[in-house]
Every structure is written in structure tokens, then in C-alpha cells.
């Protein structure tokens, strides 16, 4: 009986809250299928007529497919970089003991505390100096250099929750740190890695300002920039913009679904009990 009641409660809460949370998205979908004069009409959820052609117009007017390819290249490269370098660094902060570790940990954290607005100029000047403007390099290479303080911090927290006994057992058997890292830490931190994969993908996919300032030729633009081509100082095209942003959402949704299998509860701890 208790089981049934709790199930009902859970479902009721889920449904109620999902309705609230999905309203912004539903409005976007609705707006993407309207004609311009209907977009801001109050309380109209189902457009009349439904303009599927808005989606076609997005591709007609700008080279959106090109932007997709560019976004994929940049985002996947960044993903590889961030996952690999952040996990190495996080392992070092979480499990290795070395002189200056806690100091550098705070330094690493502090890189998140200065607004990007002020570091943009020196970064731009630097990348210009080494000739990386109008390439994808300024967007990708920093991901391999630590992969971002956010990711390092997150993984460090996760690594710290993994019981020491596992590592001790491995080391007694003569494992090097690298093997401990690769064969114990990484497999057990799969949920965290999946989270970073999703967050990093989204962050890079939706990143607007950096690709905008580093890329000159517009055929190298990413999806996020493409969406803003439907917005200008004078006339907005909100219906096209919504359509474009919904198309842009799809790869993220696919990734999100795929990553769900890592969010299955419970780690299986082998051989360590009592």
C-alpha cells in the first residue's frame, strides 16, 4: 500500500513540475511554427496555420548545415580535450600528494572568479600574436590545457568519494598511479564523466561570443552564431530564430538520452565489504 501511494505521489509531482518546466520550451516550439504576426498573440498555443516552412526557410536563408558541421568539429574536439585533461588533473588534486597541491588547487579555482569580459582582450591579442585568428585553434586548444576549472573541480570531488581501500589494494599489487587512474578511478567515475560530457558539449555548442570574435569568414561559424543571424537591431525574425534554435537543440537531446545509461543507480564495489 505504501508503495502505491509513494508511486502516485512521485508521478503527480513529476507531472506537475514537468508542465511548469516545459512551458518555455513549448512556447518556443509554438512560436517556431507561426507566421510573424501571430508570434506575439497572447494565449495562442497552436498556430493557425502551422508553418512547417519556417524550418525550411532557416536552411534556405543561411548555410545552417555548414554551421552544424563546424559546431560538431569544435564541440567534439573540445569534449575529447576536456574529458581527458580534466580527469588527469583532477586525479592529481584528489589522490596524489605533492608539494603545493592545495595552493594550486585554489589557484585553479580562482581562474573561475575573474569575469571573462576582462580577460578577453589579452587572450585575443595573444592568439592574434601567434597567428591563430580565424581558425578553430583558440576554441579547441584551451580545452586540452586542463579542460576548465569547473570540470577539474567536479571530477576532483568525485574522485574523493571513491573508497581508498580500492586504491590501496591496487598499489600493494604494484600498480602505478597511471594504472590506478585508468583502471579504478575512471570506470568508477562514469556518472561524473557523463555529466561533464553533457555539460561540456552544451557549453561549447551554445558558445556564442568566442567563435564570433575569433572567426572571420562566416562559413566557419557555429550554430549558436547562426541563430543570431535571425536577430538584428532593426527587425527580429523570432519565428525563424525559434525554429533554428530548436533544430540546434536536437543533437543535445540525443546526447542527453545516450548519456542516461550512466546514470543508473549504484556502483558495484567488488570485494570490499567488512
Amino acid at each position, binding site marked *: 500500500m505504501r508503495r502505491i501511494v*509513494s508511486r502516485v505521489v512521485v508521478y503527480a509531482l*513529476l507531472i506537475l513540475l*514537468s508542465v511548469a*518546466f516545459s*512551458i*518555455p*520550451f513549448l*512556447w*518556443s516550439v509554438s512560436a517556431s511554427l507561426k507566421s510573424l504576426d501571430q508570434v506575439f498573440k*497572447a494565449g495562442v498555443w497552436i498556430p493557425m496555420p502551422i508553418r512547417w516552412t519556417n524550418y525550411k526557410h532557416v536552411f534556405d536563408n543561411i548555410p545552417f548545415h555548414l554551421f552544424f558541421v563546424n559546431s560538431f568539429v569544435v564541440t567534439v574536439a573540445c569534449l575529447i580535450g576536456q574529458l581527458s585533461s580534466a580527469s*588527469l*588533473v583532477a*586525479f*592529481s*588534486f584528489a589522490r596524489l600528494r*605533492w608539494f603545493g597541491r592545495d595552493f594550486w588547487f*585554489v589557484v*585553479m*579555482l580562482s*581562474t573561475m*572568479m*575573474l*569575469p571573462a*569580459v*576582462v*580577460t578577453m*582582450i589579452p587572450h585575443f591579442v*595573444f592568439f592574434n600574436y601567434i597567428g591563430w585568428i580565424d581558425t578553430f585553434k583558440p576554441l579547441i586548444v*584551451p580545452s586540452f*590545457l*586542463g579542460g576548465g576549472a569547473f570540470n577539474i*573541480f567536479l571530477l576532483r*570531488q568525485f574522485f*574523493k*568519494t*571513491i*573508497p*581508498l581501500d580500492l*586504491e590501496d589494494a591496487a598499489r600493494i599489487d604494484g600498480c602505478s*598511479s597511471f594504472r590506478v587512474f585508468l583502471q579504478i578511478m575512471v570506470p568508477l567515475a562514469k*556518472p*561524473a564523466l*557523463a*555529466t561533464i560530457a553533457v555539460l561540456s558539449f*552544451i557549453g561549447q555548442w*551554445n558558445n*556564442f561570443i568566442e567563435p564570433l570574435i575569433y572567426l572571420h569568414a562566416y562559413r566557419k561559424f557555429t550554430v549558436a552564431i547562426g541563430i543570431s543571424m535571425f536577430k538584428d537591431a532593426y527587425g527580429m525574425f523570432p519565428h525563424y*530564430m*525559434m525554429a533554428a*534554435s530548436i533544430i*540546434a*537543440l536536437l543533437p*543535445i*537531446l540525443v546526447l542527453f*538520452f545516450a548519456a*542516461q545509461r550512466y546514470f*543508473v*543507480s*549504484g*556502483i558495484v564495489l567488488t570485494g570490499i565489504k567488512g
Partner: protein
Amino acid sequence: MTAIQSANVRRAFKRNLEGYLFASPCLVGFLILTLGAMLFSLFLSFAEWDAQSPLKEISFVGFNNYREMFFEDELFYKSLYNTAYYTFFSVPLRVTIALLLAVLLNQKVRGITVFRTIFYLPSIVVGAATAVVWSWILNPSYGILNLTLHKINLFLDKIYLGFINVPEPTWLESEFWSKPALIIMSVWGLGSSMLIYLAGLQGVPDHLYEVADLDGASSLRKFWNITVPMITPTIFFNLIVSVIGAFQVFTQVYVITVGHTGGPNNSTLVYVLYLYRKAFDELQMGYACALAWVLFVMILLFTMLILRSSALWVYYEGERR
């Protein structure tokens, strides 16, 4: 030195080398990219520059920027207040609601993946599009939020509780309600915090719950005595990241207050927006850098405080005390 002592030294050296090696991507990145940028902005905070003239036009002015900021600038204090207000409300809301949602979404019910996706959706839409959507939702006359509140009011009238008046604020156009509007927007975007909690919850071993079930513990006790302590590392993470993020809130406010005016009587002029305006609208990059460093120090102090306190309440399974 004895043989044992030199062996110890070698071991210590190897240990340190290993530590640095694994951390090297981050350290190298910091030294090459970040340190230079940070020092440059620090230097600029003692200078004046319009950020479009050549670099040689930068003129040194000593502590002028800081003096003006602390003693002559009303908007500095106002923007600080706005940011503090926003942080004070949005961080606890985000950190706790995301946790509760994550627990809810961790239940083994059918279709949970679909629900998880729905909750995550608002945080993955591109900034510019999100702004359009929210300015519609928060519209005082035909936005869905006020329409719902209006219906509630009409309902209360009908059941003779008309003296209870649910406010129907003008949200972003109102001096008082504009920050709450921003906070509402930030709560909707808590998808990433929720995801991180979900990942953290996966790390709580099932056998703990099983033992508790055997003892007949209620759901609430299981939550409070098992779940929460086990995910304190995740709570710690979300707390710090949310605080850092809230202090630096910019993009959402920028896109939704078109023309970055700062809102009615500067009520949504958050700190980084003010900084941005000084840098790019008023062409006072030096002053903006000074603002940035003052913010940096504040965030650093706050973070260190939370870090220090963590020894009291954060529990790491994998840590020897």
C-alpha cells in the same frame, strides 16, 4: 644521509613529480594563457584605456580607479547590492531545489528519462532565444505567469476569499519585482546543478539504503541520514560553483534587458553588467578591470570561507583523516 633517508627523499621527489605531471595540462594552461591575462587586467586596473586605441595609448593613473569606485561611485554600491540580493536568494534556491529534483528524478519509475529531459531542457536553449521566451512569459499583461496569477485571483474572489490579493507584478519593468524575475529565471535554468546531483546520487551505495530499510527507516530519514551526508561533496561543489556563478551573473541579464540599461532605476544592474558597460559603452576599460579585481577578491574570500567550513560538514568516503 642514511640510505633510508635518501630513499625517502627520492620517493618524495617522485611523488611530487608525479603530482605535477598529472596536473601539468592545467598548470601549463594557467601559465601560458590565464596568468598573463590576469596580470594584464590587474595592470589595467591602475590605468585608463578606451579599449580601442592602440596599446601604447594606455595611461597609468595609480589608485584613481579604486578611489573613484569606493568613494564617488553610487552605481558601484548599487550593482553590488543587486548582485548580493540575487546571490543570496538564487543560490540557496538552486542548490536545494536541484537536489530535491534530482532525488525525485532518481526514482526507478518508468519513463524517468523523459522527465529528466524535460527538466533539463530550459538550461540548454541558446541565450538569445531564452531571453525572448522569458520576456514573453514575464509580460505583465499577457504573459502566462501573470495570466495564471490573475486566474488565481479571480478564483479567490469566487470562493469569497477576495480579500486575499495575489500580486500581479510588472516583473521586469518594476523596480521591486525585477530581481525576483531574474531569480525565477535562474531557478528554471538549474538543469546543470540537477544533473550533477544525479551523478552524485549514483555514487551512494545501495547497500546503505537496504540496511536502513531493514531497520524500518522512513523515506525522510533515509534522505536526511544517508543521502545528504553521502553527497555532501556534490553539495559542496554546487554551492561553490553557484556562488561563483551568481556573483558573476551576466548573460541572462544582458540578453533580457535589451540595451543593457540596468532596468527600472538600475534595479537589475548586476555587477558584471555594470562592468561590461564601463568597459564597452563608456570605454573605460581601466575602471572595468578595477571592478573586476574587486569582484575577484570578494569571490575569493567567500570561496575560501566555504572551503574552510567544508571540513566541518563535507564527508569524503575516500579520505583518510
